Structure formats: C-alpha cells, structure tokens
C-alpha cells in the first residue's frame, strides 16, 4: 500500500461526525457558504445513527425566561465547572442556546414537551438553580438527531458514511490543514479527502474505562488525531462519571449503560451488598447529590466490599411501589427487563460509568483551532465546561458550537480560494500507522482493550492518586506495546471490525496516556477530577487548567491560568437581590 | 424451503388474515371465469349444463362448492374488515375484527354445507 494507491476526493467543506455538532455544522455551512460550495459529511457509522447526541435522555439546557436568565445559566455553568471553564465560551454557549432551541423547534422541526399552557416544559438537573432543561420525555436525543438527520439527508450534502477519519494531513508547507485521510470501512480502501475547512465533531467519548456510557463508535479518534497533528488539548484529566451504570457482567455490551438520573431524583435508593443505604454517609443530599459526589460515594462503597463476585452496589426502587415505578419509568424498566433485571420490584446492580469528556482541543469562541482550516466543536472541543459538565449542557454545547462552526467555515471559506496540497510525508506516516496491524501476526484485540479498560478504571478513574496514575501510565504503555505486537489478518478488509477495533484501541491508548499525564499534573481536586492525595480544591482565584501537547511523541503538560474575563470567583453577574435558586426545594 | 420456515416464524394473526384474504381473492379471480363459462352453457348447450350440474351432486363437488362459498365469504368479510380498519377511526381491535370475519364466514359456509347435504 502506497500513497499513490489512495483514492482522492475533493470537497470545500468537510465535516467529521454526525452528532449535534456535525449536523448543525452541515446545515449552517449550507446557509452561510457561497453558492456552489461543496459540503461533505463523513462519519464512522450511519448519518445520525451513531454518536451520543442520539443517546441524550434528560435534555437541553436553555434559559427561556420565567425568572431564568442567560446570566443565571452562565453562573451555574461556571460554578458547576468549578471556575475552570473558558468564560467566553461558556457565555456564548448559554447565550446561543436560546437561539438554537428556537431553531430546533421552528426550522428543524423538533417537538419538545409542553406545559399545560402550550409553552416549553423545563425541569432542573442537579446543579441548576432554575428549571431549565427542555426535553422530549426521556428520549430527547432521538428527537433532536432524527429531525437533524432528516434535514441533512434532504439537504443534498455529500455523504461519506461508514468512513473513518484516520489522520489529519497538513499542507506541504505545514501551515494549514490540507485534508483528512479516511478509510472507507465498507471496502477497506483509503481515501484522502481534501477540503478547505474541516470540522472535527467526532465527540470524544471516554470509552477506555471498564464501565462507560457512550456509543460504541466513539473512541477518542478525533483527539488522538489532533494530538498527532500537534494541537493542544486542555482539561484532559476531566472525565465525568455517571453514578448509575448498569452492571451486567463483562461479556455484555449492556454493561455501563446509563440508568437515568431521574431514578434517584424520584427517591431511588442506593444500597450496598450488605443491604445498607450509604449515600448519607457521604453527603447530606444523599442519593440526590451531584453526579461526582454520588459516583465517589459508590466507588468508595465498592472498595469496601472486597468481593470480586459482587462488584457494584444496588439501586432499589421497589419501596416506591412497583406499579408506580413501572408507569413513571417505563422505558428504563423495559430496558432493564430486556437484559434480565427487574427494576420495578427488585434491585439492579450499578456502578459509576464514564460518561462524558470535558477535555478537548483548545479552540476560540468561533471553533477555530491553532491549525488553519481545522475547526472543532462539540465534545471534542475543550473549555466550555471546565472541570465538570452540567447535565443538559452537553447537547446544548454540541448544537450551539456546531452551528457556529458551520457559520464560521462558511465565512472563512470565502478567503480560501484553493485546496491545499497535502504533505506526502505526513500522509504516508498516517497511512503506515493505519495499516500497521496488517503487517503483524494476527491475534485477539479484545483482551487488550479489556486490560486498558480495567487499568484505567482502577488507576485513572473515579478517585486518583499519584502512585495510581503512575502505575496507570505504565499499564497503558504495556497495553500499547502489546497492541503494537498484535496484528489483524489482512485478507479481507471490507467491513473488517477487528481492524477498526485495533485502530480504536490505538486512539484510546494515546488519549489514556494524556488523561493520566494531565491527571498527575493537577495536584488538587476539582469537579470530576478527585485526588485522594490532594483532596483540596485549591484556591479558586488561582485556578489554572492543564494543556497537553505532544512533542514528537513525548507529552508536554503546561498549566495555564484561567482568565476570569466575565466574572471572578466569589462574585456573580446576577443582579443584586436575586435568589440563589429558583428551583423549589424537593 | 428456509423461506417457508421464515414465513412461518413471522406469521401472526393479522398476517394470516392478510394471506387468507389474498389467497381467497386469487382463488375467486381464477374461479369466476369458470363459473361464468358454466353459466353460459345454460343457453348454448342446456343439456351439457344439466349434465354438468348433475355431476355436481357428487361429494367432491359439494366440497368444492363449499370451498367456493367459503372463499367468497371469507374474502368478503376479510375485505369488509380491512375497510373498517382503514377507514373507521382506529380502534386497536384489529385482531378481534379478523377473528370475527373468519368466524362469520365459517358460519355461512357451514350453513351452506348443512343445507346442501
């Protein structure tokens, strides 16, 4: 395989991923780009049928009046992120969400649940001071993505489905991005897609943990590509764990999937193997504490229970009346039933599960990166959430910034008359990397993935120590080495999932290392990052965030001070006399 | 072969109603020309019609006629059921309709058979 064998494909705007970010970018680029611009959307799965935006349950945060304001949403986001967010990004997120939700309802055709008077119904996730979350039952993501998918399919953008982005290829002079090396997964053939602008919306996805919620196609490919291309990644230690993932054994893909937050909100109890409720030992709010607190409570409880047969804890709903539970949480009850558990009358074993990745590529408020021609939005972009993402801010972030990316690319492309010539050396390096496993003796990939997941969970997981993370780094290196000795049979590359398992694991190893490195660098506990050896949060005024860059394969971590461009710790932008919270106490 | 097995595994009451309706319709469409032809004999060759009709006294033909009337009844009630399902505001009782249609047609056919014997 040589680079001359690579098929060429040219487009003006290339979009990677079809989550909220990718879809909105496609629609907005169409609206803002000059007539005749060719827009191509490429995705690892099928358009709209992969990624996590579709899996959004709870809903979409947006301040729509009734006492709530953009300022209040902003303050919640900053406080939730423990003062680490990039404030300009957070502000833009809150401000634009208001426009985006109208766009979703009026132009895209989503329908969100209504109040009796016909206005949008909003509820409050933990950590919010107003009823702010717009939703469609508990399947909000399906509504958003289905409607976006229809629009994109009908829009006439070019589709490259089941195409995996394998590497970012810089231009000959190295000054900008020339295109993306892709694998047509259906045929196994390579394709170099040149574009004047590329949006990366591949959605992060911390699937290197033993228990994780994101969809199977998400394996940090985007961040790994950005790292190789020399871009800076920020907040990489910040992995959000959802407290209640289903625990059904390590031979089922069901394990790790989310049991919704609302169960605890409605009065669901967490009990240990000995049958004791324990959350009040950790927090006054008990099961209703925020995600990070409950996750740590469960993790600590699991550690006490040294029985490898019984790993998790249980969520128990039965005391609320099985019929009541069945009615209120129909979808959840049915899902548990399908995998053999009785949520309504029995108890279901749960574990904290890696859910969302706050870290990502350093971008400006218009989604531009340090590399000309490359834009990043959605979960791949760092900054908007800081150390912790509020429930409901994830999909708001991807749709808001996806749209902004589309607008920005549509505008920027006017000053980019030419496609750029790719750097052949970089191209051949990326090609080599992708076909590397085909030259090695075939072996199973899965055991290595399991090893990585196990060690990340143990050593770089819910609670961390310097020793643990160092051990983790060593483990990652071992898995990584073993992976390089593991091959994939090359006789049939068409729809060869095992090859892609290999490439997925490659990305996961690379980013796992970054997580550990950043985690070691942060010697305090903020939001999702909890150091047992440094349980203190550190002074908010001195907040800094980590930035990791790869320098010829060596990780460099620096710490940059947070710029309090809008509000300083201890202050607020809410008008004087505003109540602390508008949410009626439960 | 494996197709047949697959069809069997996918079958359900409404699907059976559909296939019965289709087969009975097909059967009627194929039978009608014969029926018309026989009737036409009434004038052109009355004798042969009589001969034909006396032949029909045999049990085999009784059964065949039973089949025809049964087919017509099944098809008609199936069709009425279908139109009710499609046009009347939805009731969600489709299976009951299907069962009812078959039951009534069986009843009519049985009546016919009893009278005929």
């Amino acid at each position, binding site marked *: 395989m040589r680079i001359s064998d690579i098929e060429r494909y040219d487009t003006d705007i290339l979009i990677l991923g079809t989550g909220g970010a990718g879809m909105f970018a496609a629609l907005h680029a169409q609206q803002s780009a000059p007539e005749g611009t060719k827009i191509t959307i490429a995705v690892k799965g099928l358009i709209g049928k992969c990624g996590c935006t579709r899996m959004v349950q709870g809903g979409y945060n947006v301040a729509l009046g009734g006492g709530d304001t953009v300022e209040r949403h902003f303050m919640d986001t900053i406080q939730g992120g423990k003062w680490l967010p990039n404030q300009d990004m957070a502000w833009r997120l809150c401000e634009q969400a208001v426009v985006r939700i109208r766009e979703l309802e009026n132009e895209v055709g989503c329908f969100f649940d209504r109040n009796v008077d016909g*206005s949008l119904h909003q509820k409050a996730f933990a950590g919010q001071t107003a009823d702010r979350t717009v939703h469609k039952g508990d399947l909000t993501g399906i509504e958003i993505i289905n409607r976006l998918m*229809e629009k994109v399919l009908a829009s006439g953008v070019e589709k490259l489905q089941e195409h995996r982005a394998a590497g970012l290829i810089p231009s000959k002079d190295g000054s900008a991005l020339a295109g993306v090396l892709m694998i047509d997964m259906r045929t196994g053939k390579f394709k170099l897609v040149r574009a004047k602008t590329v949006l990366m919306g591949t959605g992060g996805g911390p699937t290197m943990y033993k228990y994780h919620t994101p969809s199977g196609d998400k394996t940090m490919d985007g961040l790994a590509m950005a790292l190789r291309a020399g871009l800076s990644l920020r907040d990489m230690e910040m992995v959000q764990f959802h407290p209640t993932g289903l625990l059904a054994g390590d*031979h089922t893909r069901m394990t790790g999937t989310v049991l919704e937050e609302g169960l605890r909100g409605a009065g669901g109890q967490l009990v240990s193997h000995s049958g004791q409720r324990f959350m009040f030992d950790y927090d006054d709010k008990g099961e209703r504490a925020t995600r990070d607190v409950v996750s740590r409570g469960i993790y600590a409880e699991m550690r006490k229970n040294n029985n490898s047969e019984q790993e998790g804890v249980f969520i128990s709903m039965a005391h609320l009346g099985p019929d009541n539970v069945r009615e209120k949480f129909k979808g959840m009850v049915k899902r548990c039933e399908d995998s053999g558990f009785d949520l309504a009358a029995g108890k279901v074993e749960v574990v904290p599960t890696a859910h969302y990745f706050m870290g990502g590529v350093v971008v400006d408020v218009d989604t531009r990166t340090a590399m000309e021609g490359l834009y990043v939005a959605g979960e791949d972009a760092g900054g908007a959430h800081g150390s912790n993402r509020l429930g409901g801010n994830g999909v708001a972030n991807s749709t808001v910034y996806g749209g902004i990316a589309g607008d920005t690319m549509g505008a920027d492309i006017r000053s980019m008359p030419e496609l750029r010539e790719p750097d052949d050396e970089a191209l051949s390096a990326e090609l080599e990397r992708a076909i590397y496993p085909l030259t090695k003796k075939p072996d199973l990939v899965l055991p290595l993935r399991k090893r990585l997941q*196990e060690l990340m969970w*143990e050593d770089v997981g819910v609670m961390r120590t310097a020793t643990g993370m160092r051990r983790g780094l060593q483990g990652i290196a071992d898995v990584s080495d073993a992976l390089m000795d593991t091959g994939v049979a090359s006789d049939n590359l*068409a729809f060869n999932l095992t090859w892609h398992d290999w490439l997925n694991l490659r990305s996961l190893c690379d980013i796992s290392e970054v997580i550990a490195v950043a985690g070691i660098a942060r010697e305090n506990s903020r939001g999702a990052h909890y150091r047992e050896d440094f349980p203190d949060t550190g002074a908010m005024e001195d907040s800094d965030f980590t930035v990791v860059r790869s320098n010829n394969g060596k990780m460099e971590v620096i710490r940059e001070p947070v710029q309090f461009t809008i509000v300083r710790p201890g202050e607020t932008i809410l008008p004087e006399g505003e109540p602390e919270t508008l949410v009626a106490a439960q | 072969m494996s197709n047949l097995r697959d069809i069997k595994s996918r079958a359900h009451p409404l699907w059976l109603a559909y296939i019965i309706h289709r087969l009975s319709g097909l059967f009627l469409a194929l039978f009608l020309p014969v029926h018309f032809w026989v009737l036409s004999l009434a004038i052109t060759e009355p004798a042969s019609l009589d001969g034909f009709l006396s032949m029909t006294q045999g049990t085999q033909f009784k059964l065949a006629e039973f089949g025809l009337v049964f087919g017509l009844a099944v098809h008609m009630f199936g069709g009425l059921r279908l139109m009710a399902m499609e046009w009347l505001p939805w009731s969600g009782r489709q299976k009951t309709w299907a069962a009812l249609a078959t039951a009534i047609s069986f009843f009519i056919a049985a009546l016919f058979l009893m009278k005929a014997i």
Partner: protein
Amino acid sequence: MKNKGLIAFVESSNRLYRDEKLNLAADLRDMTKSSLAVTIERGPVDHRMQVFDVPAYDNQTVLDVVSWVQQNADPTLSYRFACRVGMCGSCAMMVNGVPRWTCRTHISKVLDGNKVTIGPLRNLPIIKDLAVDMDPFFDKWVAAEGVHHGGLTRDDPIAAIDETSSEREEANAGIECINCSVCYAACDTVAGNSNYLGPAALQRAWTLLNDSKDEGYAAILEIVSGSGGCHNCHSMGSCTAYCPNELDPMSAIAGLKRETAKSFFKRGR
C-alpha cells in the same frame, strides 16, 4: 477489584485463536455453564451458513453473541451497532427469521434449545455478513416528505402547542421511531414491491401531517397518494407486530388512507 477470571478467560481465548479454531475447543466450553450453537449467515459473496459454538452467559443479548464471534472466533465477521441500548436503531438483524433489535434482545428469548440463527436484515442490500445498506430505507424516508416543512425561523417565538389535542396525540404516537428498519424488514409488501415507501417512512409522513407546525400537508398528501404510497399497504400489520418500540405504523398508514380517501372525494380524485 482486579478480575482474575477475566484474565484467565482472555488468555485462554488468545490461545484458542492461535489454534485458529472456529469451533471453540472444549476447555473454553468447560469454563462456562453451557454453549450456544449459533448459525450465522455470511455473505453476500461466498454466501453460506456458518455455525459457531459460543459460550452462554446469564446476561447476554443477541448482539453480545454476534460480538463474541467477531471478537473471539472469526475476526472478519461484519455487523453494525452503535448505542447498544435500543436508541440508535443500527443493530437490527433477522433472528430465527424474525427482524429484531439485537442489542435489546436477550438471547434466552430467541433460543430454540441452544440454537439460534442470525442473518442480515431482510429487504435491504447486504454490504457484508450481517451489515446491510440502509440507504434505500432513508432515501424513502426523505422521499415520503419525512422532513419538517417549516414556516417559522429561529427569530420567531416557539409555537404554543396543546399537547392534549388530538392531532398532537396522533403526531406523538409515532415520534419515537428510531428508524431501525425492523418494520421495513418485516413487511412482505416491501419485499415484493421495491417502490413501496414502507411503514416507517409513511408513519413519519403521518406524524408530520398531524404536526400543527408543519406546512407540508399538500406535498405529503401528494406523495403518499402516489405509486409508492400508502395504498400499497395491505394492513398485514407485521410492522406493528415487530416494532421494538411498540409503535403502530399500520394505524398511521390507515390514517393516511383515510386522509387521502377524503381528499379523493373532496377534489374528485
């Protein structure tokens, strides 16, 4: 919390793969309670049925079984999944001749003794093995005007809508479709009639027809009255019978038939 059993399992399966055995050897079988005889339809080139011996576990879905084969026995087996919890609709396959979402189908539900047969979804072109090309399904979705026809813009306020109105209830009934194509695979009319838009696309059209925000009434009525439209449906109800989300496309299509019949009389065809 290190799992010794896992490592042992991993090592043994590693060894087995080196032995290049498709039918996994006895030592692996001994580790588990029992095993399943899983027949998988391979194709489209070199089309054949292949039997795999898969260890049985307590919580195991059809997707897990398929994944096990790819991850441990035959690395070239192709299939598709994403969310693994019944939200994305990409994992549907024919299981014992019945279309199902595999990530949410417990294996015990479909086992015949210890046997199960898994094939690619019906009525769609096969890409490889268990992965089908879903484009025709989505092309029809769009062709059925299954896309919002809006009059409002992002600068307009969001319309106040009464959720309890009968139109909204009708629209809501089909809104949770995950476009998994199970109904499309179940429908024999689709099988015999490649023009037919199929249950999911028509259900989407019906939803939009009832959506007070949608302005595509005339266009939708036109397309569903056309040659691939709702009148091809014979109300065989397989769509409704097999929809994993318990939706009812058959009734939605009946709704379209009512609406078009009305327009037939109103406009004199």
